[in-house]
């Protein structure tokens, strides 16, 4: 046993000596492997980030057992309607969905049908603007807002400003020569909602001033108006249904989030809702779309890596062939001394694997560095990807990178190794 360990140790020593000698020789031709591994690490991180990004934006408030129901003509989950009319989900549809077997809680985004003006004092000037008002239940915010339980009507109505609305507001402000306002400046900002219960042209209109305050901002709600607790809208509508010329009903459904009691029933329920003429989206469907998009990314990356791989293998093959030629004297002498062919092949392949592992390590760290670089610079190049946070690999890809590189290197070295094993000193000496 001890003799065997000594034997292993000695052989390892001679192998490592060769590796150290050959590192520089194989460095140039093995650049490909470094690139390949770096690209792989980059690609896998990018893929992961894209997946998380898509998941994060689309599933931010969506659970696996939830279905988003939108009016038929609206875009994918969007309630944006600039200038035009917002599509609605008729109340009878909501009742019918509620009646479907297996449907649990239904959370809704509702739209107040009464015209409402936002009134706020800013820099000594008063701003008044008609703006749609939507209602959501606090449960909508449970993932994105720590204070979601406080999002309930009180003396002052809490208001959430969608990012999109903030931008529109700032554009308006700019047009009127007012300075732009960021989120920080607007946090807790007081305002008044002036709600008119009759249509704008009606001869007799009642107006109600409702104090409100900016509660927060949201990038997830794709809405074109202010967002208040839905309780406030429903109660207000109930209280003022009898006003002269009051619009009825006082609110409509803009979007529903239907919770399914058992996830297994989701596809069936989803089909049922679709048959009511409504648009339906669930995590499962989004996941399918995401996977399609990722398949395209994967496909093109695989083609690139395939070409890289091919060139790398050729380069390594070539470099090892040179090494075999340079070491032909040693190999043939080893044959004379009694090293078997199999052993020469194994040793050579083992050395190649060690060198490959080393280059894999280098490639990995270059890839990680590239991720760090892209993390800082990509949002400047491609502003759309601002929300995409590239995550540096925390070491999980390291074994893959090193192992793959070692494998690649040793496979490429195999044929040269066979050549090496057939070296014949009697020919080498005779020349």
């Amino acid at each position: 046993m001890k003799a065997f360990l000594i034997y292993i140790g000695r052989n390892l020593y001679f192998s490592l000596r060769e590796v150290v000698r050959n590192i520089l020789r194989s460095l140039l031709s093995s650049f490909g492997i470094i690139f390949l591994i770096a690209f792989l690490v980059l690609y896998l991180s990018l893929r992961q980030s894209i997946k998380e990004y898509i998941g994060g934006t689309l599933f931010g408030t969506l659970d696996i057992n939830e279905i988003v129901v939108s009016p038929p003509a609206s875009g994918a989950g969007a309630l944006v309607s600039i200038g035009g009319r917002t599509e609605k989900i008729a109340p009878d549809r909501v009742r019918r969905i509620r009646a479907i077997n297996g449907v649990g809680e239904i959370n809704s985004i509702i739209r107040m049908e009464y015209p409402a003006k936002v009134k706020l004092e800013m820099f000594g000037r008063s701003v008044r603007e008609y703006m749609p008002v939507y209602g959501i239940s606090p449960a909508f915010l449970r993932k994105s807002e720590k204070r979601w339980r406080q999002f309930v009507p009180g003396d002052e109505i809490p208001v959430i400003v969608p990012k999109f609305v903030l931008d529109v507001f700032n554009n308006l402000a700019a047009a009127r020569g007012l300075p732009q306002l960021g989120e920080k400046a607007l946090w807790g900002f007081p305002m008044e909602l002036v709600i008119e219960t009759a249509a704008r042209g009606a001869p007799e209109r009642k107006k109600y001033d409702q104090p409100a305050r900016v509660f927060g901002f949201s990038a997830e709600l794709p809405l074109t108006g202010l967002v208040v607790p839905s309780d406030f809208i429903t109660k207000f509508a109930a209280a003022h249904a009898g006003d002269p010329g009051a619009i009825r009903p006082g609110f409509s459904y803009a979007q529903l989030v239907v919770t399914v009691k058992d996830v297994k029933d989701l596809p069936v329920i989803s089909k049922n809702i679709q048959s009511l003429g409504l648009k339906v989206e669930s995590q499962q469907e989004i996941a399918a779309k995401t996977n399609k998009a990722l398949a395209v990314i994967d496909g093109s990356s695989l083609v690139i890596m395939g070409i890289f791989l091919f060139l790398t293998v050729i380069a390594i093959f070539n470099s090892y062939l040179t090494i075999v030629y340079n070491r032909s004297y040693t190999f043939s002498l080893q044959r004379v001394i009694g090293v078997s062919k199999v052993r020469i092949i194994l040793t050579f392949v083992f050395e190649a694997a060690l060198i490959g592992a080393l280059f894999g390590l280098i490639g990995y760290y270059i890839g990680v560095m590239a991720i760090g670089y892209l993390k800082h610079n990509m949002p400047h190049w491609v502003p759309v990807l601002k929300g995409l946070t590239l995550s540096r690999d925390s070491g999980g890809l390291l074994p893959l990178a090193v192992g793959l590189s070692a494998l690649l290197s040793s496979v490429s070295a195999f044929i040269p190794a066979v050549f090496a094993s057939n070296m014949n000193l009697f020919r080498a000496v005779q020349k």
Partner: protein
Amino acid sequence: MRGAGRGKAVDEPALLSIEGVSASFGKRRILDDVSFTVEPSSIVAVTGRSGAGKTTLLGIISGLMKPDGGRVVYKGQNILKWGDFKRSRFRNREIGFVFQFFNLLPDMTSYQNIFYPAIISPRSRNLKEKVDYLVGYLGLEKILHQYPATLSGGERQRVAVARAIINNPRIILADEPTGNLDERSANDILSLFKKLRDENGMAIVIATHDSRTVASADVHFNIDDARLQRIEPPERRKKSRRGR
């Protein structure tokens, strides 16, 4: 053809026998129906002009080259039937090589060069003692940690002989071992071979041009026009000197 079997029963199997070996490169026949035997404790000289096929013959004996036909029988077994693994082990344990150009590994010290054939086999034991013994035996103490490039021809060849015998082989195959040495170094190597023959019972097959080597041999073969012929010594004095 029975070779160097002095004082032995004629029907006792030889250590090594080459039987009807033929070899060619392309259409050129290098060896034609070559047969001879090698006995333990003997020096066999193989002569022939340059290109006659001496190196080829040593390559075939060691199992590094395949002949067109014939048998190479070692201790009753035809080594040509063996697979590479067995032939490699045969070369490692039973044969030692010495070459005209010494063929040491340039990036290893004398010590490592001598060591090298032994590390191939996991069964090698007491390596340090063996090397130490050989170093004393061949007087290599002073050059043990020098690299081949810093050694003289004679020193290199002595290191090469040490490497050839580290695994205590039964046969040494030497391809023009004195061809690149000055007279004194050549004599050193020759007396070393005689010592190994006499003290260790080794058989030494030497391909050579050198007349002194031929004179030191117990048996002399010459290759001419692909055929091997035994040359009887001109005087019988040599034989009586060996007759102990």
